[in-house]
């Protein structure tokens, strides 16, 4: 979808998107000539269509989280999927994580077990590259509560991605404001 400023006969530029509100996305376009702005307000169906295709209006960050779509879109999923960092838990030792269950079945011969993939640290190892623990401040958590429940996982993911890009370890209300500012809301 493209927007044309009819006064200037110029294509409008995408200025930013706002966090989903009750399933509706706000996408703001600006005319590069006269500066006029329009906001496209999607209905929840349109927002869902875009989401199901796993694309982002306004473009996405370079490398989205692995399996970000299923994680954000499954209506019911395992709580601890892909070892999400513990929300409340600053200082949680990653080695607390339960190791993969080993079958002690003598009937299975020569089980090599989870041998490491070249270039990958062993499972459960300190994986801090992009999944390091992010702490949510209570206020930030409260704010997230205002986001409708069915888009909350996606909003959470988006904010965490933003925080990681910025190298923050804690998500506070200020970080949320900053993200909002960057998105031109």
């Amino acid at each position, binding site marked *: 979808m*493209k*927007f*044309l400023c*009819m006064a200037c*006969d110029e*294509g409008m*530029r*995408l200025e930013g998107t706002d966090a989903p509100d009750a399933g509706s996305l706000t996408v703001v*376009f600006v005319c590069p000539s006269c500066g006029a702005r329009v906001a496209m307000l999607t209905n*929840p169906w349109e927002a*869902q269509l875009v989401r*199901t*295709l*796993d*694309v*982002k*209006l*306004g*473009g*996405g960050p*370079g490398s989205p989280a*692995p*399996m970000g*779509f*299923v994680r954000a*879109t*499954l*209506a*019911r*999923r*395992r709580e*601890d*999927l*892909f*070892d999400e960092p513990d929300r409340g838990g600053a200082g949680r030792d990653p080695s607390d994580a*339960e190791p*993969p*269950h080993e*079958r002690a079945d003598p*009937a*299975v*011969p*020569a*089980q*090599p*077990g*989870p*041998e490491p*993939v*070249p*270039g*990958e*640290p062993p499972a*459960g190892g300190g*994986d801090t*590259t*992009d999944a390091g623990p992010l702490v949510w401040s209570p206020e930030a958590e409260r704010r997230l509560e205002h986001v409708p429940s*069915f*888009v909350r*996982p996606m909003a959470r993911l988006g904010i965490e991605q933003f925080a990681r890009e910025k190298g923050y370890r804690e998500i506070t209300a200020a970080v949320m404001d900053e993200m909002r500012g960057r998105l031109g809301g």
Partner: protein
Amino acid sequence: MKRYRDLAGDGGSDVLAQVAAQEARLRTRMAAVRRVVAVMSGKGGVGKSAITVNLAAALALEGARVGVLDADLNGPALAKMLGVRDQRLRRGPEGVLPAVGALGIRVMSMDLLLPGDETPLTWQAPTPQRAHIWRQTAEVSALREFLADTAWGEQDYLWVDLPPGTDRFCDLHNLLPSPPVVVITTIPSEVARLVVQKSVTVARELKAPVAGLLENMAGYVCPACGVVSELFQPGAMAGRLAAEQAIPHLGQIPFDPAIGAAADRGIPFVVQGRQTAAGKALTAAAVAIRAFTEAT
């Protein structure tokens, strides 16, 4: 006034670039996988999942590196059949680390993402009543992520267990950079025979190489005396059918209660049953498929 095509770009979201990035991610991942083999059948319950697990295990026993992808998102069975249901998926720097079953077989299945036995696969939607509208698209997105975001590592074979019918095979084919090898399974009945032809047609139209037809539940092995008796229609139906369709015949697997029992225990039947009639037939089929993939 300018028209759509007069304006450069796509309005700022660059959806095409996003889709291209998704494809590139998948292509990069699949570059480390030598062959993808899809096990297909038009009919449900003919033993696709059990056969996928055992063919994969038979090649693993021969020293191949194998992974299995459960593309039956609504009726996932592979995690159970490979005994990995209690493993937790973890995130590593290369992607989501798959579960690891007997013989080191890597497993990705929707079963590992759902919270409990009683939980069906459901997607978030503006209204639950209309969720079916998104289901197909959501499932394809999920399948794409299973392929692209699982840290499969270097694999000789990635086996894909499909749900009944041909739809999911078409999805898989659309996603993959090159067509998967197809193994068609059937049982000796006229009804099954009808749908085999459809599977062959779909594979042909999509230019996917068909490694052959494997007939399951062909005869019953009496656990007491070992005598094989007919379970469905007698006669060499699969052989005739394969000849008619000009595809290789991969053999016949008898019905052996030990196959079901092994699946329930989460251990591939061929691990212990290699020397039985069914075990030999499964191993022979796996070896024939390997030869086929090496020749094509």
